[in-house]
């Protein structure tokens, strides 16, 4: 039976194995390749998307989990908060190789949506699940503060 869900504001019907990781539904079936595969084991955060407004690891979320729910990927992150985060990322030139950055940005939006003025400790706690092999952590932290100040 098809799975009905909403992705970036669009209702979609998914005819996939219910056990399929959401990550592969997004990338292979919906061609939303901004969300990255990193580890497949909830260890790196590269596949972070929002499910009903909360950050989740799409490699662990299964297709059957998203019935009737709302998914936002990096492609659909376009509200004022998302724009502020993206602007801060560009202003501070956060990105190096960029592979982890869709997940980093989705987590940054997730943090700022719940804690508009996060402390360094808040940022460290909320972003610890997103790994960056280029070690851009200091710029990520600065960009989150920059986005918070600009909102």
């Amino acid at each position, binding site marked *: 039976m098809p799975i009905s869900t909403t992705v970036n504001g669009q209702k979609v019907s998914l005819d996939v194995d219910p056990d399929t990781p959401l990550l592969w539904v997004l990338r292979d079936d919906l061609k939303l390749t901004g969300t990255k595969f990193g580890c497949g084991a909830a260890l790196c955060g590269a596949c972070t998307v929002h499910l009903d407004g909360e950050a989740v690891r799409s490699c662990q979320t*299964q297709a059957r989990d998203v019935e009737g729910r709302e998914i936002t990927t990096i492609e659909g992150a376009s509200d004022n908060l998302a724009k502020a985060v993206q602007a801060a990322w560009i202003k501070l030139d956060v990105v190096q190789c960029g592979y982890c950055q869709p997940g980093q940005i989705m987590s940054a939006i997730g943090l700022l949506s719940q804690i508009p003025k996060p402390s360094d400790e808040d940022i460290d706690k909320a972003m610890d699940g997103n790994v960056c092999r280029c070690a851009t952590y200091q710029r990520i932290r600065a960009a989150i503060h920059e986005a918070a100040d600009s909102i």
Partner: protein
Amino acid sequence: MQARRRTTAWFPFLMAAAAAIAGFFLQPIAAGRLSIRPALAGPTDGNLFTPIAKVLRDPRCMNCHPVGNRPRQGDDRHFHLQNVTRGADDMGFVNLRCPACHRDENNAYSRVPGAPNWHLAPLSMGWEGLNDAQLCTVLKDQSKNGGRDVAALVEHMSSDKLVLWGWNPGGARKPVSTPHNEFVDQLHAWQTAGAPCPATTP
């Protein structure tokens, strides 16, 4: 004289009945189980809690009953990766909420464990470092255990799906060493005896 003879005649039967009753209560229930019937366990028989404490101290239980704000994981009880913390509702801080990674069942592919309502026990139910007597007292304290009386505690440990996960942890994790049916028997024996707590650490 006649009355004395009648009593004497009944004596062997009375002795046999007494022996049968004693034998019933003192016989071992089954191999590997308690060798004393709950009916004989007095309200001060805190030893009944000893095998229960062993289960509660198993990494599968204790990892999510910390005394601080950081859950642990693994048989070696290291801190949860990604510096996961308790959060305001015992389900993790922003972005690292329990359901962000843990589903309602174990993930056979990634080996991330899962069970319904995956979450940390409240801080009031932190068990690390407690001796048997303290553990028993905290367990029964309704101001700390979510308002559960002994029957509700036994029910929780007998059938709650998150508790039962400890016997089906998936991946390379060791299940709780005491079989669950034996644990339930131990709980019932303890409950029947009035849920006694040990006086001191064994």
